[in-house]
């Protein structure tokens, strides 16, 4: 599991906007556009608020009825996908210019 104390933040090259229940992400460096579903959009909002992974998990657990272990696994998977697509970066990473 990803270290709970870690914080991640949206990549500065990403712009996001709610479109109904979903959220559209535009990666301006890779020219890719993504859509997050309602669950993913909620996670994105928490990331934007600067929550640590532990806080993020706690909040999501309280909002969705799902086993903790399964939830953690799914959150880790989504976070990894977000990282792979350069949509989020570790909070201690230097912003790209």
């Amino acid at each position, binding site marked *: 599991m990803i270290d709970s104390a870690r914080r991640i933040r949206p990549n500065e090259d990403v712009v996001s906007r709610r479109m109904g229940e979903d959220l559209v992400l535009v990666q301006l*460096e890779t020219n890719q*556009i993504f859509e997050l579903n309602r*669950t*993913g959009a909620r996670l994105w909002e928490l990331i934007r608020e600067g929550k640590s992974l532990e806080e993020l998990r706690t909040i999501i657990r309280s909002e969705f009825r799902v086993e903790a272990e399964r939830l953690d696994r799914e959150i880790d998977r989504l976070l990894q996908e977000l990282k792979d697509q350069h949509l989020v970066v570790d909070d201690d990473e230097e912003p790209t210019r």
Partner: protein
Amino acid sequence: MNLLASSGSTVANVSGDDPPCRSNRPSLRVGFESTGYLRPRAVRIVYWNHPIWSGVSVAMLGRFLQLCRDDKLTLLRAAPAVIRARQMMQTVSLKSCLQDRRDRDDGIASRLEGPNPQELRRAEWAVAAMSRILPGKDTCLVRSLATRGLLARRGFSTEIMVGFAKTDEGDLDGHAWLHSPTAQVPSSDDTDDTEFSKYTKIREFR
């Protein structure tokens, strides 16, 4: 105008129905086992189709010669602006296109006010005309970039807006347009204001 040249449909599909929700808290729309949290999306962008380039005709030259001096100059300056915008779209990232510093640095003196409506219309007309003549894909973003560049050379400051709209079928439409303190510049072939305002603006790029 197209934001990104793309064709085809959504790459990944959301699968699964919403699980039953037993509280009034937000419920999951897709099951945890699904792969639909993050989906790459193709965007349908606004573009104009033109016949294959057949050169400049004598009739076109005749019309050009009848233009006033300002129109001629603007039209001639629009050509490199369109070519450059198309090159940028093919070679650099959206970020570099949208935050192009050269547009501003080329300005003789960055004026605080935006261009007057007449300047806007002239620049938009010239870019649209050159976009039809020059070979290459004619999209809303290219036109916006070219028009912004053209106006910047005259010292006028404008910004590019990028917006999305969801269709009833769930597809994403993308559009880009220019904005200035003095006027909005939907491209001349655009539909009316109602259609234009359907886009949710994601950000303006100066």
